[in-house]
């Protein structure tokens, strides 16, 4: 299928449009809220919340007998919320560290969720597919009213985020200061975690319990590489999340036998990989280039210094040429001497008097003095002085 056909389908086909809009919306919400989870070092809390939501889905079904998505999502939200409270309770009231508390909540809630699901499956009304899609997610099951739910809850969550932007920002970056100016950190904590829970449970139907945490972390981690500004990061993560969501949903709708959740996760993880490599400042590629440049600079500065030292040996004869071999010996085979010389030549600081023999230019002399002063805080020995 060509891209044009795909765009045409998204515009005309009802199911395709519903599914892609829904997945994009939940990706955007998850990406935006995930930024706070990432920055607050709560990446794994998302994993615990999404696993902890499973018994909520099952119990909501058992208690109400309804398979309506809002009911199940509400159950998931309550269970996920309870899970985070249990993690907090364990960490505050015992010497168990946070990672163990998260592991316990994640596995025990999920295990209990399995128990509840086996009970639920005995109900004659339980269409198995209905509940089991929550494990790995199936975006194709999104209906228009599910999308409406995602959009409404997601928009409200983003609205709360916008209204309390200052407070959340302060809480994330300087908690002590936030407390000192009278903000209730505990209440803000709970609220922000509540928003995170909302973002996670919205995604359960399309992405699944097991992998939802990745959709929280990955867009945020990718966006973090491109900017140091929180608002840009949140916006970018929202866009990346939406792309991953829609892309994954579309891919899995058209290729047979590809589950949605994993596809979305792989697209988002791909974005992280690309960002880690290619982001302009924090990216590994640009760091490599920067390191290389610095290395070359250091090497050619060294050669410049050596030329200066040699010039000092020949007072009054600035233009006296020195063989490359001497410079190489002075650099103690650090390599790249020729390249450094060419660089210096390009900068107009050195010139090749005759093949293989080099000397400083007047500008190079000044530059070497300047560098000497910058480095040692003292004047360089004058070239015209006594021969040492």
């Amino acid at each position, binding site marked *: 299928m060509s891209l044009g056909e795909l765009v045409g389908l998204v515009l005309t086909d009802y199911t395709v449009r519903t599914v892609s809009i829904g997945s994009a919306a939940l990706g955007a919400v998850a990406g935006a809220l995930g930024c706070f989870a990432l920055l607050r070092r709560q990446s*794994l809390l998302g994993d615990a919340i999404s696993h902890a939501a499973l018994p909520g889905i099952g119990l909501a079904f058992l208690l109400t007998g309804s398979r309506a998505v809002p009911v199940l999502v509400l159950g998931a939200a309550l269970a996920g919320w309870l899970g985070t409270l249990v993690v907090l309770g364990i960490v505050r009231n015992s010497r168990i560290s946070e990672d163990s508390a998260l*592991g316990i909540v994640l*596995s025990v809630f999920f*295990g209990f969720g*399995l128990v509840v*699901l086996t009970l639920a499956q005995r109900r004659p009304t339980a269409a198995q597919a209905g509940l089991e899609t929550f494990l790995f997610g199936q975006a194709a099951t999104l209906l228009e009213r599910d999308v409406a739910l995602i959009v409404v809850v997601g928009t409200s969550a983003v609205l709360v985020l916008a209204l309390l932007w200052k407070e959340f920002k302060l809480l994330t970056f300087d908690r002590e200061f936030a407390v000192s100016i009278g903000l209730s950190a505990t209440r803000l904590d709970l609220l922000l975690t509540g928003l995170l829970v909302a973002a996670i449970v919205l995604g359960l139907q399309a992405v699944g319990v*097991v992998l939802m945490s990745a959709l929280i972390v990955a867009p945020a981690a990718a966006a973090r590489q491109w900017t140091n500004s929180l608002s840009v990061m949140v916006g970018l993560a929202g866009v990346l999340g939406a792309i991953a969501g829609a892309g994954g949903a579309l891919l899995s709708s058209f290729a047979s036998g*590809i589950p949605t959740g994993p596809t979305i996760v792989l697209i988002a993880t791909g974005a992280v990989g690309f960002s*880690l490599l290619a982001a302009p400042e924090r990216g590994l590629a640009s760091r490599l280039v920067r390191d290389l440049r610095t290395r070359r600079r250091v090497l050619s500065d060294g050669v410049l210094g050596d030329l200066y030292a040699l010039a000092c040996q020949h007072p009054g004869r600035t233009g006296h040429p020195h063989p490359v071999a001497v410079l190489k010996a002075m650099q103690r085979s650090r390599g790249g001497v020729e390249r450094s010389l060419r660089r210096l030549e390009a900068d107009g600081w050195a010139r090749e008097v005759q093949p293989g023999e080099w000397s400083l230019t007047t500008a190079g002399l000044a530059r070497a003095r300047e560098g000497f002063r910058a480095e040692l805080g003292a004047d360089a020995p004058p070239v015209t002085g006594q021969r040492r």
Partner: protein
Amino acid sequence: MTVADLEIQLLAVVVAVGCALPGVFLVLRRMALVSDAISHSILLGIVLGFFIAEDITSPLLVGAATATGVLTVALVELLHRTRRVKEDAAIALVFPALFSIAVILISRFAEDVHLDLDAVLLGEIAFAPFRRVQISGADLGPRSLWLMGALLAANLIVITVFFKELKLATFDAGLAHALGFSPALVHYGFMTLVSATAVGAFDAVGSILVVALMIAPPAAAYLLTNRLPRLLLLSGALGTLAALSGYWVARAADVSIAGSMASMSGVVFLAVLLFAPDRGIVAGMRSRARQKLAFASVMLTTHLLHHEGDPSAERESREAHLQEHFRWSGDFAPRVIWHAERQGLIVRDGGGLLRLTPLGREAARHQMTR
């Protein structure tokens, strides 16, 4: 009880103990969630091993899965080392990606073979007795039991032989390094053990129960003791308790065995968290209440000493006044007085006046001058 029942329970106990032993070190090293990461990403190794060997029972699968587990740890570390991502985020990025690849491979290319996603994730220990080891026609018992038994033995041997090294590397990594134990060797050696154990347990009970059995029993035991050997023993015992009670609950209610075992390990942890003798929440509340009473009775004795032999004592040294003076609530003041009386610090005379005993006077003076 049938032979199959016994075999399932034996397997459950072996899995529980086998998971709890390395779990102790994970909990102590604050790497509990590594078990979550490993137990998910080994699926990729199993799938790849299956594609190569084309046989679900091939030992190659175990090897490949163990290697993927170690690879996960290495990838997390690599990502963390770039200093572009925090460690928790690195974990949360690596294992979902590997797991996603595995799920897509399964659903795309292996749907018709016996790699059922649900079974992989959730495990079905009830089926373990059906997969048996047979050598020249002789039935030697369930395959999982052999595999997990071997892994339990490996854990026991490694932990016994390298007890000193593991202990030192866990509690004082710096000293261990200074004494010449390579941190990388200890770390990756241990991670290989964890990974192999997770693979064996995963085969029997699915990935989530692996996490529950590796973390919950050791965390519970950690609230009961400060000594490493006892911690290991208790973890094994609590794991066994969770596994067996989980099995019987599942039998009684006819629900998922793995889910029930995970739930019971949570119940065991919760019980210990609440009722552990020293570090339990209830014990903590009681000791705080005791301290509050003890402190209040010291306050009371100093108050009485201050007014002793003074006309004001007639007014100050009465129960009703204490409520006003210390802002003690109506039922707290009598409890403080009762406590102080029982400690022999004060007596109440006929007129309802509180007086210090010589012991109480001594205690109050000591408090004032120290």
